[in-house]
C-alpha cells in the first residue's frame, strides 16, 4: 500500500493545527483521519452521522470531485435502519425482518427511531408490552414519528461487533464474515455492526463507534491501517 498524502483534523475550527499521528494520540476523541490510497480518499471517524464534522468533510471532498470512502450516500444508507436493511438484503446479506409502526409492535422486538433526533446506537429490545410502552413513547416523540421494529425470537441474542475496514478483532468466523460483507456494501471504515444471533447472524443495524470503546486489539488494527502497516 502506498503512503499517499494524509491528514488529520479535529472539530476545533479552521485554525486548528494538524495533529501528528503517534501512539496514544492517533485515536484522540473527535479526530478525523484522512488517507488517500489508490485514488480514493478514506475518511476515518468515530462518528459519520448526518451534519457532523466528518459528514461535512466528506461532502466538501465530494463537491471537489473526489471519490470518498465512505460517501455521504453510504452514510445515510448505513445509518437509516430500514434503508440499511433494504440495501443489505438486496446485496445478499442476511437481515432481520422489519416493519414500520407508529404505536404497537409484536414482542419481543428491537426498536429504532426514525426521525431527525434518532440515532441508530440508541436501540431498545422490548420483551413485553408493559416495558414496550414507555420506550415507544420516547422513540416516537409521543406519537409524532413512526419507528422501525424488528421482531426477534425469544431466544435471540443481540450481538454488537466492531468492524474496522470490515475486519474484526476476535469475532467468530460467521460474524466476521457478516462484518466483511457489510463493509463491502456500505464502505464505512469504522462501525459497529449490530446483529441478531439465533443459530445464524442477521444484520440489525450499523452504528457509529467511539475510539474509546475499541478494545486493545481493535485499536491495534486501526492504528496499523492508519500507519500504512496493513491494507484496508
Amino acid at each position: 500500500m502506498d503512503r499517499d498524502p494524509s491528514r488529520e483534523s479535529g472539530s476545533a475550527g479552521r485554525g486548528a493545527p494538524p495533529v501528528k499521528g503517534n501512539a496514544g494520540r492517533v485515536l484522540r476523541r473527535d479526530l478525523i483521519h484522512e488517507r488517500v490510497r489508490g485514488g480514493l480518499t478514506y475518511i476515518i471517524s468515530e462518528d459519520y452521522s448526518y451534519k457532523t464534522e466528518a459528514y461535512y468533510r466528506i461532502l466538501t471532498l465530494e463537491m471537489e470531485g473526489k471519490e470518498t470512502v465512505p460517501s455521504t450516500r453510504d452514510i445515510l444508507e448505513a445509518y437509516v435502519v430500514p434503508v440499511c436493511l433494504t440495501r443489505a438484503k438486496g446485496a445478499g446479506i442476511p437481515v432481520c425482518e422489519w416493519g414500520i409502526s407508529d404505536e404497537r409492535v409484536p414482542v419481543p422486538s428491537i426498536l429504532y427511531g426514525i426521525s431527525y433526533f434518532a440515532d441508530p446506537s440508541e436501540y431498545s429490545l422490548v420483551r413485553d408490552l408493559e416495558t414496550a410502552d414507555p420506550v415507544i413513547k420516547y422513540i416516537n416523540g409521543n406519537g409524532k414519528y413512526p419507528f422501525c421494529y424488528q421482531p426477534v425470537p425469544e431466544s435471540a441474542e443481540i450481538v454488537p461487533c466492531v468492524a474496522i475496514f470490515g475486519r474484526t478483532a476476535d469475532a467468530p468466523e460467521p460474524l466476521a464474515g457478516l462484518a466483511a460483507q457489510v463493509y463491502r456494501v456500505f464502505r464505512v471504515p469504522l462501525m459497529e455492526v449490530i446483529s441478531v444471533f439465533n443459530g445464524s447472524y442477521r444484520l440489525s443495524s450499523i452504528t457509529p463507534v467511539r475510539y474509546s470503546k475499541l478494545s486493545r486489539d481493535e485499536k491495534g488494527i486501526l492504528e496499523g491501517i492508519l500507519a500504512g502497516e496493513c491494507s484496508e
Partner: protein
Amino acid sequence: MSRLGVFVDRQTLGNSEQLTALIRLRDSAEEMGHTVYFIFPVEIAKIGKVDGLFIRSRTDPMNISFVAAKMAELRGIPVIDDPASIQICSDKVNMYLHLMQEGVRIPETVFVRKGEVTEKDAADLFRELGSPLILKEPSTSFSLRVEKVHTVPEFLKTAKRFIKLSDWIVAQRFIESDFDWRVGVLDGEPLYACRYIIPQETFKIQATVNGHVVYCAVKSAPLGQVPAPIIETAVQAANAIGGGFYGVDIKDRDGTPFVIEVNDNPSLEAGEDEHSPGLYKKIIGHLLGEGETPAGSGPAR
C-alpha cells in the same frame, strides 16, 4: 392505466388546505385514468406495488419520507422527491455548495464550524457580511431556526443554539425585501410562480411573533408576468440540484435576483399554482411517463 402512490403522514393531513390539495391531486390523476393509493408510513411496503411515487410529507434524510424515497429508488420506481434531492435540499450547507458550484447567485454565505463560534470569528463575520446577518441551522424548514442577528452577543447566543444541532451552520448577508418570488420547476421547466409577501412583523415567510404564528400571504402570478431573470435564475438553481420538482425562493434586489433557497417537496396548498391549473397533471405525467421521459429515481442532470 398506472398506479400512483402518494406518500403521506399525519402532519400532511393536519389541515384542510393540505387535504384539499391532496384531493385535487387525486382528482387530476383519476381524470388521467390512473388509480391513486395514499400510502402511510406503516404501509411503506406497498411502495413496491406502485408505478410512481409522489411524496407529500416533510422530507429530511433522517425521517420516514427518505425511507420511502429510497425504497422507491432501490426498486427502480420513479419518485418525487428522489433521495438525492432530499439529501441536498434538506441541508442548507449541501444546497448552497451545489448552488455555488454551478455559479448560481446567492447572498454572500459563510459556513461556520463548531470551533468558530467565538467572539473573534463573529466580529470578523460582521465585518465581512455587514449587520444584521442571517444565521441558519442547516435543517431549517418553514423559516424555523433562521434568525437575524445584529450584534456579537446575539450571534453567539443563536449560533450556540444552532451548533448543538449541526457541526456546521450558515451565516449570510441579509437582503431586505417585501416579498420572495417562489418559482416551481419540474425537471428544468418552470411550472408556476407566486409571491410570498413577507409579513410586516418579521423578515421570514413564517414566524412566531408575541406568541402568535404569522404567515406570509401568497399571490399566484402567471409565468408570463414574472421577470425573465427571475425565471432564468430559478431554472439555473433547480438544475444545480437535479431533475426533480423544486420550489425556488428568490429575492430581487434592484433587478438582481438572489436565490435564497431551493426546496424539494414544495408546498402547493396555499394557492401557489392558482394561475397554473394543469400543474398536478404535469407532475403526474412526468412521474408516470406519459408522453415524456419518466422521472427516473435519480437526480442526474
